[in-house]
């Protein structure tokens, strides 16, 4: 993994997770949840948009990285990204169904972590799923051209 390409992804995931943890989770995690709603709307909007802006910068660095590639690797990478995007959309689409079936509650119970943010898809979780499917897709498509 190239950190020069993925540093903005890490930043987006960390800030997104921090936002969920500090401002949206219940006690004992949501340390600032009680006062967050009293803050100015502009400040809250900026806080919520930081992960999105970081992920856009990540997309820019990924695009530059892909442009500099050898043509076969560019093809493998684009196929892997397409796979990751479709797989992530599929997972996010069936997430409410899994949640309704009690899967997420079972995971939370098994891990003994009671973060509300994990009850539904959120920004860092979505990026994490995308990243995971990218590496899966890359290993599949890379093997095809070995």
């Amino acid at each position, binding site marked *: 993994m190239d950190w020069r390409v993925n540093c903005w992804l890490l930043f987006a995931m960390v800030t997104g997770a921090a936002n969920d943890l500090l401002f949206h989770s219940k006690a004992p995690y949501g340390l600032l949840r009680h006062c967050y709603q009293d803050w100015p709307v502009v400040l809250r909007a900026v806080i919520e948009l930081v992960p999105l802006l970081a992920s856009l910068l990540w997309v820019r660095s990924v695009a530059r990285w892909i442009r500099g590639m050898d*043509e076969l690797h560019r*093809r493998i990478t684009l196929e892997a990204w397409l796979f990751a995007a479709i797989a992530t959309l599929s997972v996010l689409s069936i997430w409410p169904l899994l949640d309704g079936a009690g899967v997420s509650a079972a995971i939370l119970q098994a891990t003994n972590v009671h973060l509300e943010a994990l009850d539904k898809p959120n920004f860092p979780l979505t990026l994490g799923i995308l990243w995971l499917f990218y590496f899966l897709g890359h290993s599949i498509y890379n093997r095809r051209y070995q």
Partner: protein
Amino acid sequence: MKNKLRELRAAKEWSQSDLADKLGVSRQTINAIETERYDPSLPLALKIARLFKQPVEDIFSDNEKP
């Protein structure tokens, strides 16, 4: 698409890495073209043709009959 890249490279006694360096691509790309798992882009096919001083259609051919 069929190609004669492996024969042409062998005739010059170049390794896949040597050819990859001359063409500015990875060794994996050369291997994928030689094993016919990957069809090169037109610019790369022209570059290969120029390097071996042969017309593109002499190096690459499809299975279609004229």
